[in-house]
């Protein structure tokens, strides 16, 4: 489905910008509510994420001692901007991406990584020991899940023969669901998404019982609100990408809602099922199992394509 809208509107209001942020808050609520119900809790009310954001935006922002002031203020903005930029290249709400060119898959993924990188830098910018340990863990985790996650998204790209998100989306919509055709890639992508979003059990970078809030410990008020919004946007974009690639593409808004929520349900279930992994266990898991599985999947795809063309 194509949107007859001016690019500025697309960027700022719909489907990017404000609407994307609003849906980020809704998905955050859905995630929290699902996890709470799985854990036999009541969970937050629908309005809670919005209320939290408004409260944080209205709060005084405390500038801790020993930080670089410019970085402290700009890093949250860069993080949110990077996440919103990534939103331009993915088929949000089932519409065609607002912007598209050959190879935008790489750009979208790296825009999402910029968010994580900004969080790591924000932690490293302070002198708080919790933040420093959190920053180290955030960046360590970034280097561990990034390769397998990228490889798992390259599977559909190779199958579709293009690195353009919109074309992969169309390809996925016309063919057998890639979740069935490339099951290993799907599993790696799901778990990679959890690592990217720092959801339990991969929440060592923000393990509250060890390092309070990790890299975010020194942030309060506006900066913290922007980082959180960036994370929420990342959640929506990540769900969009994986469901567009592996769940048969996103053709219209209804399909988008059903597929992403189904994926979120699985994510929430996985979040509740395990104890938190230590950072060394996370890295070990990714490089020993994740990367290996993704490479096996890639080899299988390449072999399948080449053998298919021979016969």
């Amino acid at each position, binding site marked *: 489905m194509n949107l007859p809208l001016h690019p500025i509107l697309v960027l700022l209001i719909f489907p990017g910008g404000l609407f994307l942020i609003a849906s980020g808050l809704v998905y955050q609520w859905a995630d929290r509510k699902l996890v709470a119900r799985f*854990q036999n809790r009541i969970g937050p009310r629908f309005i809670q994420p919005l209320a939290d954001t408004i409260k944080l935006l209205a709060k005084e922002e405390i500038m801790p001692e020993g930080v670089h002031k410019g970085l402290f203020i700009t890093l949250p903005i860069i993080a949110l901007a990077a996440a919103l930029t990534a939103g331009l290249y993915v088929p949000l709400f089932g519409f065609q991406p607002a912007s598209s060119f050959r190879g935008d898959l790489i750009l979208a993924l790296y825009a999402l990584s910029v968010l994580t990188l900004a969080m790591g830098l924000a932690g490293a910018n302070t002198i708080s*020991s919790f933040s420093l340990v959190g920053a180290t863990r955030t960046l360590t985790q970034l280097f561990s899940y990034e390769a397998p996650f990228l490889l798992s998204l390259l599977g559909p790209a190779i199958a579709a023969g293009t690195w353009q998100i919109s074309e992969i989306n169309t390809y996925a919509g016309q063919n057998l669901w890639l979740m069935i055709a490339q099951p290993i890639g799907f599993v790696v992508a799901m778990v990679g998404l959890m690592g990217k979003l720092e959801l339990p059990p991969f929440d060592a970078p923000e393990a509250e019982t060890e*390092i309070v809030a990790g890299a975010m410990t020194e942030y309060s008020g506006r900066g913290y609100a922007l980082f959180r919004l960036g994370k929420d946007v990342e959640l929506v974009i990540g769900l969009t990408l994986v469901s567009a690639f592996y769940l048969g593409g996103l053709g219209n808004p209804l399909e988008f809602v059903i597929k992403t929520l189904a994926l979120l349900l699985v994510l929430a279930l996985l979040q509740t099922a395990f*104890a938190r992994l*230590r950072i060394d266990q996370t890295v070990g898991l990714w490089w020993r199992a994740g990367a290996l599985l993704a490479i096996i999947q890639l080899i299988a795809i390449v072999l399948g394509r080449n053998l298919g063309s021979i016969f």
Partner: protein
Amino acid sequence: MTTDTNKFVIPIGPQHPALKEPANFEFWVDGEIVTGASVRLGYVHRGIEKGAEARTWTQNLYLMERICGICSHVHATAYTLGVEKLAGVAAPPRANAIRQLMGELERIHSHMLWLGVAAHEGGFDSLFMYSWRDRETVMDLLEKISGNKVHYSANLLGGVKFDITPELAAEIHKGLDFLEERNKFYLKVITTDETFIGRTRGIGTMTTEKAEFLGAIGPTARASGIARDIRVDAPYLIYDQFPVKVMTHTSGDLHGRFIVRINETFESIRVIREILDHLPGGELTTRVPRRIPAGEAVSRVEAPRGELLYFVASNGSEKPERVKVRTPSLCNWSTVLSLAIGLKLADMPMLLSGIDPCFSCNDRSVGLKSANQDPQIWSWEKLRQYGIEYYR
């Protein structure tokens, strides 16, 4: 422990999400590896021992119960046993049976609380939520017996307040069936869940010799293979008629401590059932004089965390001369500090909670910095004035 200022220190506490009570731990880390640890306690010193000297023997019963919010009954029991020893009276068997029953119910509630807290420290929030939900069952049972969920006030000097009626016994049986089934499930979870085993097996392993050397007690020691339990070694109440088996484990690591505590829960359930089926008849109370004869007595009981020791001294008046309490958490701190070295920072919260610490229980005394000439003796007036000045 050295105090090298170049070390990278991770402070845990006095205010930290991992701690539910205030205490200060400093872990020196090299990357993620812990190279040193220190502890500073005493944030919740409440002057209870001193307060006990100003109250009558009976009033103290309620004060002692408030030393701990989790094992309140066992504190009152230890105190009562000490006073009864001094007074030379023995509570009737039915009273002792009910005391023991309450104590074992309390152990179940304490161990399930600990299971949840320890799981939460390891980031396993589902287990935390489920075990605390099921723990409500045993708290409801305690409420049905005594009318209270936390401070039951079941003990009297020379007996107990509450009787166990047959209807109540049936309800307890029903609750125990549910708890046994749930705990079997938890045992299955902690022995089969891969991520949980990855966080607990081989972490903080303490050999039997080391546990002996560091003076570990309670489930922490029993997980290292030391079969030491006051309920068996020096039976009090009617533990000689309804004995418990000492649950030990040989691994000595965090995983062993989980298994020991869950097995102890099963053992408690078994003993409670036995007591309910063979509850001795007779009176609930006997008479205890208002003035306790002069003398000294030591009473030892097995609290959920280990051996709890009370020293009670009387000068023959209506009030105790001295009450000294040594809680089990105090004995286990050294195990945390010595096991921490070489582990990962991520293991610290679980290692800390592995001994089931209770900070407010063990904070006994504190040296006050003198703001006037007399460093040692502070009169009530001076202390009051100091407090007013301090918070002005």
